[in-house]
């Protein structure tokens, strides 16, 4: 008779959105792993049809409360391509500064409040604060500075109101940004301390051969621009994305799984992919600190994504400082005007948790006729399950609760954003 054991996490914690994990073992071997996304569908791609071009960045922001800027940026760029709009460098710089704010806020949240408790053995940052008050306070202040930067450019941190197709409704005031420089200086030092803290954590072994996928740009660390590159050697303009990456709908998930063609392999997007593809484009201070911490080579273990996230936090703070210093006068024109017309455009930007692809078709009536949105977590879902299949044998000797915790830790490596991906998880382990 075969011995069956199952264990489950009915509701994943310290992730954004709702999911569960189910693992079934047969005779001590992993028989089935399922990441169950039960976050209910909200049908953004359906109800975007018939909306005006100007409304799109406001609506897509509502896909995710943690990374609304990513949705706004991918939307705006895709629609600008559809409309044939060229956006001047001054607006481009402000968009990068806004994105830096989101990376700082989101990475600080994930490193300190969601992921670090796993490494230090706490159930939450709230419990961790009893023994590591300085670290938690540092994380909270970093997050606050990121949010403050978002609010000064976008009006508010969650669902900024100032972003529009063509640029910004109003250019941020020079003084409003300059005032933030002392805080950004503090954040840069705090981000360096963050890297020093996370670089010496103990990382569970996880030997995987990931196909990393991210944007890459010759002159800048990828946020708003770049070609799509894979570790397996593909390098394509974003316009060819759908020829190589496709979504599959599987029964256990309201999220769609993305696969890389032709052989339908899973792949990894996010900080580890960007770090490995774009190390040279990191800011000088980020590179210097990475070298000092001995993390300047390739990183293959996604438990070390917290290190990549910390390096990116330094880059975001360093670049934000530079961009604010350069912002000495408001641009004459805050946005490029346009008249809605028929057309189609696609674009990808780098959300804090990975590549985010949008495509829109505008109809003859100037309204959205078709929308396609591929969030980072649905791209990572197949890879998360694949990681779990490789990882579960390491935790088989543990009791169900501890084994489930370890698997949740692995899932958090991906900073999954389940609300976005509903189109993500339960540890149901059958043993």
């Amino acid at each position: 008779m075969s011995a069956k054991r199952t264990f489950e996490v009915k509701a994943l914690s310290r992730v954004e959105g709702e999911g569960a994990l189910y693992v079934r073992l047969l005779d001590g071997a992993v028989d089935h792993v399922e990441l169950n996304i039960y976050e209910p569908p909200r049908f953004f791609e359906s109800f975007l049809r018939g909306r005006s071009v100007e409304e799109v960045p406001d609506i897509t922001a509502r896909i995710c409360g943690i990374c609304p800027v990513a949705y706004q940026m991918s939307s705006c760029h895709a629609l600008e391509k559809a409309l044939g709009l060229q956006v001047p460098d001054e607006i481009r710089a402000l968009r990068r500064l806004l994105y830096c704010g989101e990376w700082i806020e989101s990475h600080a949240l994930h490193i300190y409040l969601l992921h670090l408790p796993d490494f230090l053995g706490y159930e939450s940052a709230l419990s961790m604060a009893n023994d590591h008050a300085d670290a938690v306070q540092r994380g909270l202040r970093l997050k606050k500075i990121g949010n403050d930067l978002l609010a000064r450019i976008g009006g508010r941190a969650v669902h900024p109101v100032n972003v529009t197709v063509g640029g910004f409704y109003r250019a941020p005031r020079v003084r409003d940004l300059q005032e933030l420089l002392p805080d950004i200086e503090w954040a840069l030092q705090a981000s360096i301390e963050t890297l020093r803290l996370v670089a010496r954590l103990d990382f569970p072994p996880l030997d995987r051969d990931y196909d990393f996928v991210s944007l890459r740009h010759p002159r800048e660390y990828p946020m708003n621009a770049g070609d799509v590159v894979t570790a397996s050697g593909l390098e394509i303009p974003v316009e060819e994305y759908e020829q190589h990456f496709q979504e599959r709908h599987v029964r256990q998930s309201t999220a769609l799984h993305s696969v890389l063609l032709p052989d339908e392999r899973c792949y990894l997007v996010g900080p580890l992919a960007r770090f490995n593809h774009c190390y040279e484009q990191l800011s000088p201070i980020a590179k210097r600190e990475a070298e000092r911490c001995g993390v300047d080579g390739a990183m293959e273990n996604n438990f070390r994504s917290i290190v990549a996230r910390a390096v990116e936090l330094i880059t975001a703070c360093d670049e934000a400082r530079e961009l604010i210093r350069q912002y000495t006068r408001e641009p004459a024109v805050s946005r490029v005007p346009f008249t809605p017309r028929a057309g189609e455009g696609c674009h990808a930007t780098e959300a804090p948790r990975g590549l985010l692809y949008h495509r829109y078709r505008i109809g003859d009536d100037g309204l959205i006729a078709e929308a396609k949105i591929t969030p980072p977590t649905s791209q990572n879902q197949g890879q998360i399950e694949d990681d779990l299949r490789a990882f579960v044998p390491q935790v088989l000797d543990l009791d169900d609760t501890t084994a489930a915790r370890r698997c949740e830790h692995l899932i958090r490596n991906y900073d999954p954003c389940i609300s976005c991906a509903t189109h993500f998880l339960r540890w149901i382990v059958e043993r």
Partner: protein
Amino acid sequence: MAARPKLAVFKFASCDGCQLTLLNCENELLAVASAVEIAYFLEARTQQLDGPYDIGLVEGSVTTAHDIQRIKEARKQCRYLIALGACATAGGIQALRNWADVAEFTRCVYAHPEYIETLATSTSIADHVVVDFELRGCPISHQQLLDVVSSLLRGKKPAVASYSVCMECKRRQTVCVSVARGMPCLGPATQAGCGAICPAFARACFGCYGPKEQANPMSLMRFYFDRGIGRGTLVRLARNFNGNAPEFRDASNVLSSQ
């Protein structure tokens, strides 16, 4: 209320932005966590304490049959149940399905619609259970959230301003974008709370905080229509994050039927 009341955070269909607002109270978070026992808050902690809870904060709208069961159970567990944000108080942007064929919506996104279980409508928490207080916004204001929680802790009835966004514009001395620039602004019909940020950024209000007390959005829509703003633009303006709030819903239905 108990010496250290227990607080729970429940999530339904949403973007997580409103519960994130609790974590965005960076200066106050650790103080809040000492004043109340954060007993159930999946986004922030793994530890889950069983109910009953003194305060339940609910984010998100009801979109599945299972949601209806969950919200009824949450209601039983909580002494005070507070709905947070446009999804929980009006159904959210996902309530746009209420004017559409949800089967067609499902086919549009999913290759296997048969795997998807969803209701034909997205509805507010108060449509299903008694709610003790509704905090508006898309997203909510972190200051208003702190005010509501501290009111409950002191045994006071929570109170937030129910007047319109116009009052906030006047207070910050923002020139009216409707009067001066002819923009169709939803501010006169929308509840304050955001700080009137949109007009300050040279754009019209699009109703994140839902209808103000005794709002008459239909009259406002007629005013804009008479000044040449297209019907489609006005219907879309009313059918937004709070499109399923009764006052906005009725206005958009009248407009689209004319």
